């Protein structure tokens, strides 16, 4: 398969890009909700528009009522979400949770997919325990209790957890902290007794929660996939989420780069456009190379994931790490090349820096994923 967008994918892009620029733009969404101190951190109206266009079910199988598309297509949408810094439950709901629900029974899918498809509900996933992404170690426990389970433990960095109608929680049902087996995934509904959210606003104006589970009673039908065999579901969710976050990161990088290159052509000092100075030209050109390379890596990882290829796991980590590096460069050069106004809240470039920081941390930063590349390569 050639490594560029097919005609259909190009058409999707041509629909999504103007829509997101219009409806998802910074003034209309990010700045609007931030300035109103919105407890969700995103707007529900745009989420329903996503649903009307079918986007919320982009990864949901056609027989389940979704678009039945792949990670390349989801990535096209996410790149525009990133470019516009649009606050959206899309990554958590339509990528992470939707990927988990693929492994769910007919009952599980029947219960949770309709709300996702209609845009009535948003979901999230609770994976991390502690400030760094370490999904190899899961301590949150679910003990057998009657016909179901009792869930106890704490999760962190749960995106818009307090706004979610359901949270997919990875918990240990047997074995010790570091073991591969013994993980089970649960769909925990909003009204579950004993679930407590502590919402925290993050640097990028999104809202995440520290979520405690104090003996939350769950039915057996809350289980997604196999009891003790949830690692498969978790891994699928992580691969999808990481490629998705990387695609969004490419959008952040490209948005910051385009804004900065535009500024170089417009700002004058010493009687010249600052973009005439070779010192800045070379840095901008180097940035362009890094962002292009990162984008190619994401597209490749998405294609491999859609093809179910063995190398998908390695390339997912390559893409996540590479995007983190390229986007970091883009936002840092962005603020520096804008000079003083780049530090002001009035100007948008700073939003890119904040978003990049949060997005890079989500599901593993460049150090975590470079380490994973080494481990998967055998060193």
């Amino acid at each position: 398969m050639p490594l560029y967008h097919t005609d259909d994918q190009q058409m999707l892009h041509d629909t999504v890009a103007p829509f997101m620029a219009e409806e998802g733009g910074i003034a209309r969404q990010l700045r609007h909700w931030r300035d109103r101190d919105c407890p969700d951190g995103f707007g529900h109206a745009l989420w329903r528009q996503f649903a009307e266009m079918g986007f919320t079910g982009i990864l949901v199988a056609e027989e389940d009522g979704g678009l039945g598309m792949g990670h390349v297509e989801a990535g096209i949408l996410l790149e525009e979400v990133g470019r516009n810094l649009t606050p959206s439950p899309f990554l958590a709901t339509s990528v992470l949770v939707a990927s988990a629900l693929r492994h769910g029974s007919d009952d599980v899918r029947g219960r949770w997919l309709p709300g996702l498809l209609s845009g009535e509900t948003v979901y999230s996933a609770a994976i991390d325990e502690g400030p760094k992404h370490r999904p190899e170690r899961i301590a949150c426990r679910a003990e057998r209790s009657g016909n179901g389970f009792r869930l106890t433990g704490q999760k962190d960095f749960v995106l818009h957890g307090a706004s979610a109608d359901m949270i997919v929680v990875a918990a240990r049902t047997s074995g010790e902290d570091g073991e591969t087996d013994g993980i089970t995934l649960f769909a925990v509904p909003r009204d579950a007794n004993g679930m407590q959210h502590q919402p925290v606003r993050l640097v990028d104006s999104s809202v995440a929660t520290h979520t405690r589970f104090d003996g939350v009673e769950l039915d057996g039908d809350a289980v997604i996939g196999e009891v003790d065999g949830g690692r498969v579901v978790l891994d699928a969710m992580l691969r999808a989420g990481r490629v998705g976050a990387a695609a969004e990161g490419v959008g952040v990088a490209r948005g910051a780069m385009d804004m900065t290159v535009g500024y170089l052509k417009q700002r004058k000092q010493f009687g010249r456009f600052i973009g005439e100075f070779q010192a800045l030209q070379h840095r901008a050109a180097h940035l362009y190379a890094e962002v292009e390379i990162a984008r190619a890596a994401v597209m490749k990882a998405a294609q491999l994931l859609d093809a179910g290829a063995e190398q998908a796991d390695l390339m997912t980590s390559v893409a996540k790490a590479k995007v983190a590096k390229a986007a970091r460069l883009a936002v840092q050069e962005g603020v520096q090349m804008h000079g003083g106004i780049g530090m002001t809240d009035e100007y948008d470039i700073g939003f890119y820096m904040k978003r990049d920081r949060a997005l890079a941390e989500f599901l593993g930063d460049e150090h975590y994923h470079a380490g994973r590349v080494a481990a998967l390569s055998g060193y």
Partner: protein
Amino acid sequence: MADLTQFREQTRTWLQQNCPPEMREPVRSEDDIYWGGRDARFASEAQRVWFEACRDKGYTVPAWPKEYGGAGLSPPEAKVLREEMARIGARPPLSSFGIWMLGPALLHFGTEGQKQRFLREIARGEVRWCQGYSEPGSGSDLVSLQTSGEDRGDHWLVNGQKVWTSYADKCDWIFCLVRTDRENKYRGITFMLFDMTTPGVSTKPIKLISGSSPFCETFFDDVKVPKSYGEDIPAQVGEVNRGWDVAKYLLGHEREMISGADSSERTAGIGAAMKRVAEGGGGSLDPLLRAELAQFDVDALAYACMGEKFLDEVKVGKAHPAQPNMMKYAGTELNKRRHELMMAVGGSRALEWDSEETAGGKPARDWLRTKANSIEGGTSEIMLNVVAKRILDLPGG
């Protein structure tokens, strides 16, 4: 797609039957590369068998039309062949500047007569070509070149000097940029073809910091270049005085080639191999070195994706025309980093200059040689200039 699957199976079978096991070993020295030419000698029987099988099948230049010695493969078929060759580690059957550089120029700008003669000679490995571009006074500012061709009716009288001419002392013919109009900087250069045995041509090898090199200085002293080599075979490619167009077109190809986008060796991670090197020396990978290797592998594997994307886009005309400059910049800087890391892992063993254990100082010599990657074919600084102006559309300067 069904056709491609079938083509892949056929290719796999053909390679199985025709590529000798010795030709699936990595290239270890200059002897392992077959360049063709009038004085060519095969280093081994396997090299001869492999070359002749490919030549007869058109696989020395798979994507060229059959009438010029190629196999006429479509871009997707050529990609399949490349993938299948990479899968078994097959060496290129024939390497030549004729294939990489002159061929594409002739396919684009050549007359039918030139194609029939020169392309076939290249495809069959009969003539080895070198490239005469840079001059002592014209490096990055190539268009200022001074080697002159005076119109003497039925021939050009060429005088001047070229430098960094790869393998000039071993090549049969040269494609050469010659100034034929002093009044017109860009439209005063002609892209000429002539025989290196013509009286007045002489070469002198250049020794590099790596100890040896394929590069030469090439001198032209009243060289008479005939204006025609037969019916419809003029000595120049494109029109007289319009050689800069050809040169620019070819620089794209050269940059693509130096970028290593197409090279499996240049687009792979090195961490696992470096761990074996470290452990082979009785030690282990230093944790900080491991971390640097991991960061390098991320960049190298991501660059491999970019290489694949770039080549796919080139085939269907989707790539930005200045994209080879970005590829060349990123690919060569990456290769320099690769060899810095290999030297760091190798330690004092990698410093050895002529020991048997290092095959005559290969690590150190290869490391030094890579420093030319970001100079030859356009420096990194020139590449960044081009990207800034032609892709990012930054002003003036």
